[in-house]
């Protein structure tokens, strides 16, 4: 059975943030989980390893990313 991407992302984030209840609309950076640049790249690297995908650096050049945006990118790459 394919892994639930949202649940896996929450697991990855839980190791890096003390936010009690992350939701898909929560920003990864400022005003949300407040991950700094190094933590953001670490999340990306953990997702790449977990899902076997390769994420382009352009992802971070988009408007402020939410957890849902990250999930959507990964799901699109897995298709």
């Amino acid at each position: 059975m394919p892994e639930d991407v949202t649940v896996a992302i929450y697991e990855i984030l839980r190791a890096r943030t003390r936010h009690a209840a992350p939701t898909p609309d929560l920003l990864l950076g400022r005003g949300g989980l407040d991950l700094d640049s190094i933590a953001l790249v670490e999340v990306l690297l953990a997702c790449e390893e977990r899902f076997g995908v390769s994420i382009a650096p352009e992802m971070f050049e988009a408007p402020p990313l939410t957890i849902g945006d990250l999930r959507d990118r990964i799901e699109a790459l897995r298709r």
Partner: protein
Amino acid sequence: MSSEQESRSFDGIGKLLSNLAVSSPRAAYSMAGKLGALRNRVTRRWPRVDEVQSLFPLLDAHDAANVAARIGALYERNRVLVRSIQRHGIDPVRSFVSASEPLASMKGPRILATFHVGAVNALGPALERFASPVLAFRQGRLFTPRGSLEIQSTEGDEQRRAATLHRALLHLREGGIVVVALDVVPDLGTETQCLGHTLRLAPGAFALARWSGAPIIPITARWTADGVRIDAGEAVSTPDEAATWLERYLLESPSELTLGLLRMLLGVS
């Protein structure tokens, strides 16, 4: 002469020298050094002798005054250099910047770490001639590079900086060389000690080294009689090792300290 008049006089000469640097760089930078040293001796600041002694307490007043004058000389040379690049481009600088052979032929993946010492703004032309592709990060763009060098800005929010870091990581994984400044971090940064004072170092280079396995090599640019020479130091792997390396370098060559780094170490604006 008032302080304002004196400042205008020195600045005026500095502007003339930045024009002269296009046709006669050696003469212009030599005169800039003399001007900076004179300015320091006359004004007794930029930097003050007691500021130098605060960082190098083993220097007596006479030696500290000489170091202060040489730091003043470095400040003026660098100011003329930056002004000349802004006004006339990087081409005139390319003729007098050289890198040691082991450095220029260095293959990636490597992280070259700079500090605000010596002629840090003259590094670019040497990096253009490296054998491996070089991705350098700096705040703001000073010139348009050519050859194997690409320059990217470090400005922006955390997400933008994450994109920059990710690009750097991919560049290293492809066997490239990444150049980052380790010091002069305004607020955030990993706290270390250098010359008895707090030094905050940018953590990005150390994260890149951890993720990629690439070594961090300190590099320096130094004014010489013939121009600017770029050299590499021994690899460092932690912020404390980098601070220790910088401290050793400055203890051996205190007049390579720039005013920017001096002020940061002393916590003055």
